[in-house]
């Protein structure tokens, strides 16, 4: 995925025409939503857990420098190595370097959004190292040469048919119609990859500062194989993934599993502290933790949007977002999608590269209702909108931008002066005449209001606005009183 300018309007309009995609989105988001609702209702003090989750994340992020150093020391103490990567290029270079030092020619990967962010797979390919995704969804995406469209369900934009065709074409197997057969075919391939790989690359859901433990939740068991079978394990972890204490995990694992898939707990929860010890029977000989900044410390420096870093990547905001539900993940143009993508893509990429995303929301707030760490999405979106306006990076549509700036200035002058407001009201009433329709509406207004009237009627401006009616109303009410 390259760092091109995000084109939300263009890409979402294309996605909206894809009937198969939209059907899949509704069915998947409905399922996840219902599961989360059920699972969160089972916990009596769910809201209180979310508050505690937020408080711990807040304290962690406010003291990130301290906890990062604590994490580094803990990992070293457990026999692991720690690498700091300022940006994507540095992270790729570090990981390729570890592979070269270990004379690794093939790598298995478990699901990790951070590796998507740094485009690690292309870096491996450029270095002549084979890399295989082992999460089923990611494996499908890799075979298709695409990118994930959901944080926890990367291939939800693919139907069963798409996958049957893809597998028979890319794996040279018959067209299997049943998911079980497809899964079996993938499993057979992946088993041999696990056994031959010299290195396993994972992300992490949490990194515990006091113990140096990397925690990974999953349902397929592929991450456990990735982190234990090959002789080298590299975990790429965004610096915001820290929790201070081991005991914090019980809270965060509860919040994550129930918010993400509606499970009480994921099928596999792996706790990895350093490489194989002398007393262990198996496990990787080397453990490397690569801590990724890639724009995160810039978010940390902004008081208004800092809470974007509290995210634990559960995907609940995607599943509850009425916009994501229509347009899917690829419309957001970069690694992260849905409400969390709308707030962190512009911040990680640079706001000039994604000026449309903060506006890709009706500010309905459904995301905030389900966020396990109560990120105030509307507030952050509003602050980012202000940043876009202040920087004049605008939308991708120059014409629209011009209308907006002029429109806002005009609006401000009008509403600041009561007499102008009344005059504008009256003028607008007469101006609308050519577009009046018998049913009391306006049906084809000029640009930019055509963007409303193409598919919706627009109300007519009233002949007598409320402020012109008030005196009559007041008099009538008074007369009513006098009669009684």
């Amino acid at each position, binding site marked *: 995925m390259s760092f091109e300018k995000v084109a939300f309007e263009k890409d979402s309009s294309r996605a909206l025409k894809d009937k198969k995609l939209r059907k899949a989105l509704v069915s998947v988001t409905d399922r996840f939503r219902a599961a989360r609702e059920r699972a969160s209702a089972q916990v009596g003090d769910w809201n209180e857990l979310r508050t505690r989750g937020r408080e711990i994340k807040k304290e962690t992020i406010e003291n990130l420098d301290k906890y990062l150093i604590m994490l580094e020391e803990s990992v070293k103490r457990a026999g692991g190595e720690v690498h700091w990567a300022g940006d994507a290029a540095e992270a790729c270079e570090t990981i390729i370097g570890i592979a070269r030092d270990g004379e690794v020619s093939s790598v298995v990967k478990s699901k990790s959004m951070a590796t998507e962010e740094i485009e690690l797979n292309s870096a491996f390919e450029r270095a002549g190292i084979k890399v295989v995704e082992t999460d089923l969804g990611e494996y499908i995406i890799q075979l298709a040469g695409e990118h994930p469209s959901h944080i926890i369900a990367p291939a939800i934009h693919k139907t069963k048919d798409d996958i049957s065709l893809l597998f028979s074409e890319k794996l040279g197997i018959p067209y299997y119609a049943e998911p079980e057969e497809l899964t079996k075919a993938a499993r057979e391939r992946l088993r041999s990859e696990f056994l031959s790989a010299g290195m396993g690359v994972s992300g992490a859901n949490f990194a515990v500062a006091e113990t140096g433990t990397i925690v990974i939740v999953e349902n397929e068991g592929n991450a456990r194989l990735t982190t234990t079978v090959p002789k080298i394990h590299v975990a790429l972890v965004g610096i915001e993934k820290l929790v201070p204490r081991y005991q914090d995990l019980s809270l965060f694992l509860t919040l994550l599993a129930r918010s993400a898939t509606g499970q009480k707990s994921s099928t596999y929860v792996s706790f990895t502290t350093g490489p194989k010890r002398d007393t262990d029977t198996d496990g990787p000989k080397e453990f490397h933790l690569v801590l990724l900044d890639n724009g995160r410390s810039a978010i940390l420096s902004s008081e208004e949007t800092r809470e974007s870093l509290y995210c634990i990547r559960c995907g609940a905001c995607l599943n509850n977002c009425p916009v994501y539900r229509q347009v899917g993940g690829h419309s957001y143009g970069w690694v992260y999608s849905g409400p969390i993508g709308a707030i962190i893509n512009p911040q990680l990429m640079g706001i000039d590269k994604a000026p449309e995303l903060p*506006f890709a929301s009706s500010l309905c707030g459904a995301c905030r209702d389900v966020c396990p760490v109560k990120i105030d999405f509307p507030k952050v979106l509003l602050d980012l909108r202000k940043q876009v306006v202040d920087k004049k990076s605008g939308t991708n549509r120059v014409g629209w931008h011009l209308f907006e700036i002029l429109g806002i200035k005009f609006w401000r002058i009008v509403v600041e002066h009561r007499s102008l407001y009344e005059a504008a009201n009256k003028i607008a009433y007469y101006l609308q005449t050519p577009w009046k329709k018998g049913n009391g509406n306006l049906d084809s207004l000029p640009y930019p209001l055509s963007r409303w009237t193409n598919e919706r009627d627009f109300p007519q401006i009233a002949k007598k606005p409320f402020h012109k009616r008030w005196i009559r109303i007041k008099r009538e009410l008074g007369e009513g009183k006098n009669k009684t």
Partner: protein
Amino acid sequence: MQNKLEKNVIKAYIFVTCLVDTFFPEVGESVVRVLDRLGVETEFLEDQTCCGQPAFNSGYQDDVRVVAERFLKVFERVLNEGSEKEVYIVCPSGSCTSMVKVFYQELFHNNLSLLNIVKKISARTFEFTDFLVNVLNITDVGAEYGGVLTYHDSCHMLRELGVGDTPRELIRSVKGIEFTEMEMHDACCGFGGTFSVKFPDVSVSMLDEKIDCITKSGADTVVSADMGCLMNIGGALSRRKIPIKVMHIADLLAKGGKVS
């Protein structure tokens, strides 16, 4: 409260909103008529224009601050009303009410003297249904209407103000109606202010789903407490010639009957 109403000591200043003023003045009239019937004295400050929300949501905070300050200046008069009356600001929009009650605090968080006025005004400002039920303690205003009604939760009203029960209580008390809850009643209709023209394709696809839910509910009238949502929903219903009416809750409550 009944006692206070009988003594005529409750006074409501109508913050009519620019949308209602310009496009739907009858909604403002309904608010006044319902309040008057209940024994609330109403007043309208003619200087009022817009609270600034459209520009605020578009990121033009500096322009909004000027407009919001003007709003505060206009409505500050309410605070100086003599002590024999209990005064409130009542608004027929969950969205504009949340602009004043919630977002003004963010807008002026660096300006302590204005923040102080914001807090005082916020404490007096109520969305129309919230005012009826939680301030006046009235759920039955004595209205009558024949029809099958469903209620659309507007996002700001539900999630910024936390007001969702009061409109339903009021609707259920209207004589002659049948109430039916639509599926996904709390899902956004796709309006979102300028969002509706910034990303019209996305907005309309959200609206499609809302219209589906409304149609499936079997209602012949969709009620809401925000004209923004209703002009979006109503605009699609009339364009598609679907014979379902949209109605602001104030218009519903002003229908028929007298206060008993």
